[in-house]
């Protein structure tokens, strides 16, 4: 890394958005370069000043009370039968459609997670890049996760089998930060969400996208993509055999 690279990434470094490998390279440069160190110190001084608790007043108790009062005034009781009807209609539809999984509005936790995973996949498709660390090298992707999460997932490239590792990103499932491995298969993009000990939601589909529950290195995981069931199952088999 030269001074130009370092000055361009100092802020990402202080914001905790730099991968571990890049962060180490930056630290090595800053140790040896007084000019870059001075700029790092200036940015850090500004950062500490902006994080002074005196600049951030907590919400006053009266606002907390005001929201509670507003909550109590919302016409909830009146709406309950409607919600109940919606639920009943959804159940009827689920049985009527014969095994088609229907997303119930009053969702269970598994449904919440599935919703998060689909949303994350769609957001990634809409974003400029679906990955935060673009690399087909698992020796780059795994340390990047290790620097950001307590447990890095098993990372393996299956380019020879038709599933190319594009990289990884971190997203939320509920309030948990979880690693996401991104693979390309032909024109399809597949996200592999590594859920760890948390149970994966049941396999389901939504708007033409499928979610398939799989295992990766003994951890629960879920593939979300627009691949057909057969291709998704092939990736699932590769992941469960990964070591």
């Amino acid at each position, binding site marked *: 890394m030269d001074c130009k690279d370092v000055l361009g990434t100092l802020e990402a470094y202080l914001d905790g958005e730099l991968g571990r490998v890049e962060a180490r390279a930056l630290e090595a440069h800053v140790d040896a370069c007084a000019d870059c160190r001075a700029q790092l110190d200036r940015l850090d001084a500004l950062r500490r000043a902006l994080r002074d608790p005196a*600049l951030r007043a*907590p919400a006053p108790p009266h606002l907390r009370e005001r929201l509670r009062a507003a909550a109590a005034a919302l016409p909830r009781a009146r709406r309950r039968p409607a919600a109940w009807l919606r639920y009943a209609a959804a159940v009827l539809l689920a049985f009527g459609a014969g095994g088609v999984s229907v997303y119930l509005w009053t969702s269970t936790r598994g449904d919440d997670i599935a919703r998060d995973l*689909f949303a994350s996949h769609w957001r990634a498709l809409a974003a*400029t890049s679906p990955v935060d660390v673009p690399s087909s090298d698992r020796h780059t992707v795994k340390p990047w996760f290790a620097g950001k999460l307590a447990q890095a997932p098993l990372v393996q490239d299956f380019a020879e089998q038709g599933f190319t590792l594009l990289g990884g990103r971190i997203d939320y499932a509920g309030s948990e930060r979880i690693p996401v491995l991104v693979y390309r298969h032909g024109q399809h993009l597949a996200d592999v969400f590594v859920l760890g000990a948390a149970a994966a939601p049941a396999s389901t589909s939504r708007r033409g996208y499928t979610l398939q529950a799989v295992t990766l290195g003994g951890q629960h995981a879920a593939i979300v993509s627009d691949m057909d069931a057969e291709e998704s199952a092939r990736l699932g088999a590769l992941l469960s055999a990964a070591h």
Partner: protein
Amino acid sequence: MSSAMSAWIDTLAQQHLDAAYNLGRWLLGNEHDAADAVHDAYLRAARSAHTYAGGNARAWWLMIVRNCCLAKLATRKRELPLRPVDEAAVQAPDAPADAVEEQAHAAQCRALLVAQLRALPEEFRETLVLREMEDLSYREIADVLGVPIGTVMSRLARGRALLQRALSPAQESKHGL
């Protein structure tokens, strides 16, 4: 709305009330309008809970708060173009008269920082508030503002550069910031 969903919105709003209020205060410049905007945001969130498409719930809630603040700003600009912002509201607390010199200096630096941050254009100010005071990641900020991550990064860089330039006399003085 199901009662489970409304309980979820209530918890979400109460849990991130300080963040919502702080964002409102820095966007609107006074406590009264900030509280009103947060109240509006709560009602809007309760009405539009079904539009929540998963993902980071805090970012979703702060996006609604921000939209309510911008709506208030737009009304204010239309109705009272010359209304001065309430300077006292976010004034840093003054050090007591008998405080030692260092405390006085720190308070002075803080007051200068508050003034400069308030003078920043809105887009840089809100990005810095979300990053430094609320500790949101680039991706979360991008979700709140509805802009790409690259835009978040360039706004942070520009905002910090502007602040550094504005504060440089203070940084050169004996204690720095």
